[in-house]
């Protein structure tokens, strides 16, 4: 995150400063979505009791407070409405659907600044909540792909094809242990009555712990062979790469029949990790040829220290940049899926779903132009920010 924290603004060109500004605006809108566009008031005074319904929604969305709570806001006094008094999913019964920009049914109602869709949902509210949603998908999927990707990539780059040496005992026991692990993943849901993701995670942790000991125990005897870890993992990545990502994601989504957002994020992360692995591997390989790594190896510095203290600080710069590009491409991927209509659940409003409505009803140009501009600006901003890297390391490119 050095790029973000060590903002030496003098080093940036004018256009990079501008794009940083726009990016922070996006972040602001994503954070304040519930306050900016909400059909509930931000603050109201109901019979002497202060209430903050819009702020309460934040806690409702992360399941801290229950959503069942409801009372009539219309009778309250001292109301402070949000700037756009429509939520992303609130229907405006007074508009007949497909209202053009700056439409209002009566002088009492607020303007639909960017018009409405077929059901009378406000487009601007959808855009604002879509921003939050896009950031949610982009950030989480990038984080999920980032850590396994760089871990495997650094292992591949550091150990290469010859640095790990195991004897036959170790290899055989590890192969058997891998099959045991696969069987365990299949049987655990049936074995534990109160099965959850946490149980599975613990089992996997125990599996890795025991695997480490297996290798330690058997390391004493026998002739040792070089392990082609790099080759094996690269071939696995080749299998991943041989499927076009969009087609694979489409078929995965069909298997799970309109999955939840978290599952979609998980699927995008599964498709994205090879990218991080490849870049981390290439950077580590380059670093490993330098003299200071060779000399610290010869001095007996442990692998863990070499990887974290020496290699990681030198490769992290390009990895952060890749992460930002991966963020934008995850957003683009989700938008594309929603655009062609094989996306998430229908009630979820996102940039892509608005664009999809615009595609189906061509005269409603406001449905597609504004969300399209939002995605375009975000992509352009990120490309501007790293103009140097944008062509070589950019996964968004088609």
């Amino acid at each position, binding site marked *: 995150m050095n790029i973000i924290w060590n903002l030496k603004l003098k080093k940036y060109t004018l256009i990079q400063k501008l794009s940083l500004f726009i990016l922070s605006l996006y972040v602001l809108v994503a954070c304040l979505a519930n306050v900016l566009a909400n059909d509930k008031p931000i603050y109201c005074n109901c019979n002497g009791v202060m209430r903050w319904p819009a702020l309460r929604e934040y806690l409702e969305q992360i399941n801290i407070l229950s959503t069942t709570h409801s009372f009539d806001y219309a009778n309250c006094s001292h109301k402070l409405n949000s700037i756009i008094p429509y939520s992303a999913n609130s229907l405006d019964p007074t508009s007949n659907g497909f209202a053009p920009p700056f439409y209002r049914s009566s002088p009492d109602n607020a303007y639909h600044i960017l018009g409405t869709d077929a059901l009378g949902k406000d487009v601007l509210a959808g855009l604002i909540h879509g921003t939050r949603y896009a950031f949610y998908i982009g950030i989480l999927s990038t984080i999920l792909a980032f850590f396994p990707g760089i871990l495997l990539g650094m292992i591949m780059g550091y150990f290469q094809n010859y640095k790990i040496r195991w004897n036959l005992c170790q290899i055989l026991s590890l192969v058997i242990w891998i099959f045991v692990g696969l069987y365990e993943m299949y049987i655990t849901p049936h074995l534990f009555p109160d099965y959850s993701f946490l149980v599975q995670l613990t089992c996997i942790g125990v599996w890795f712990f025991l695997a480490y000991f297996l290798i330690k125990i058997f390391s004493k005897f026998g002739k040792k062979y070089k392990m082609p870890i790099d080759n094996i993992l690269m071939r696995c990545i080749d299998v991943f790469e041989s*499927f076009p990502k969009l*087609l694979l994601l*489409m*078929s995965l989504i069909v298997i799970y029949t309109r999955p939840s957002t978290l599952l979609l994020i998980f699927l995008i992360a599964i498709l994205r990790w090879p990218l991080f692995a490849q870049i981390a591997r290439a950077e580590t390989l380059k670093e490993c040829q330098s003299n200071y790594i060779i000399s610290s190896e010869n001095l007996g510095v442990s692998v863990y220290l070499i990887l974290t203290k020496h290699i990681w600080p030198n490769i992290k710069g390009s990895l952060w940049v890749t992460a930002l590009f991966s963020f934008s491409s995850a957003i683009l991927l989700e938008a594309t899926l929603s655009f*062609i209509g094989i996306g998430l659940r229908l009630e979820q409003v996102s940039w892509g779903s608005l664009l999809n409505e615009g595609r189906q009803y061509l005269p409603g140009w406001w449905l597609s132009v504004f969300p*399209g501009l939002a995605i375009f600006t975000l*992509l352009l901003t990120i490309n501007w920010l790293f103009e140097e890297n944008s*062509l070589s390391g950019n996964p968004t490119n088609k």
Partner: protein
Amino acid sequence: MIRFILKRILVSVPIMLLAVLVSFYLIHAVHSDYNQSDSDSKISKSKKGFFSEVKDLPTFYWSVFPANFPDTLNNIIDEKLRKRITSHLYNGNTIDKITYFLKSEKELFSLLDENNTAIQESILSLSQGNEIKKIILQLPDSIKKKGEYITWMNNLNILIKDEKLWRLAIPSLHWNGASNQFHLWVKKIATGDWGKSMVDNKPIWIKIREALTWTFTLNLLGLFIVFLSGLFIGEYLFINKNHLISKVMEALLFLFYSLPIFFLGLILIYLFASDIVSTKMHILPTPGFIDISTDKSVLQNMLQYSSALVLPMTCMVLPSLAYLSILIAKKLSAESVKPYSFSLWVEGKSWQEITSKHLRKNIVFPLLALIAMEIPALISGSLVIEILFNIPGMGRLMYQSIILQDWMVVLYILVLVSLITIVGKIIADAFMFIFDNRVKLQ
């Protein structure tokens, strides 16, 4: 050279097998999901396909089950019964005790009349023995005195005692031999018997071939345009680095480069294929009417609808043109810093001459290899354009098959695309090896 290519092919054989296996399992997962619910009419359509023919066979060459599972579980064709037995097996019961229990249950149910159907259904839906015990208390007393009830009760008690979860922890390996779903399916592909589509009963191979011809013709044409004009623009940008025009052009190209394809397509439709902006600009037909006639060849069809193909081609060309020309300009300027081009410059040659005689050779071959690798990606890359402009290509075929739940077509497309990708990579590597002397040296 032959050794190099042979080695490359040998390495990619297991990758191909794995890719085929992955796509098989994806579609298998979809299918077994849908088999369980019978109600939907769309789903019953998909039951006629390959997977329903081989439903009683095991999935793969070997199967790993817990020790208490029988070999013959696949032979039970009745889905509900199989599901029920499996749920008891997952409680840790052995197969013979389950069989006794189910037999006596059948005798008991023959006694029950219509008033007790609710109890009957709830017994059928439960798998835990203790839960079944709670339900049967609701049965009328007249039944509880009968002999069938008592034997059933005894069997249930035996079943509850027999529930031992530790049995699940012991795996057992079953070898299924060649009569399994995967083997039969691979055999089917290899012999060319790809079956018929569920939707229109057309042979799948012909459907895919037609779609492939559309996609490849359009994309290769687009690629040709992109490469030639990209080289031209890139060299222009590099030679006139400091001119105002080239700076403006670079900024414009950067805009196009970040433009999402679907947004560009929609804007082009608004501008040139609809009356929204102005009626004068409406010079091209609105998308969504391409109706290919089967008696003409694909090329004739394309020529007939050439006016409808202008916008999709533009949509395809613009972003990649922007990408390629900026890339070429950058690569040229990276090459121009190297000693050999500097010495040429010192000799007094113009940058134009140096570029056309020396630099171009050095950047074009890596780019060509890059493009050879991109060809398979085009199949999915043009998916959005094909759906938006209604072109009967590969992407739209995939999309439609997914929506109409024609799984076999989806499966074949996945396999085909992944195989083409792997072969494309081999070709790109061989290409680099033959034409680029720098790779040979390594």
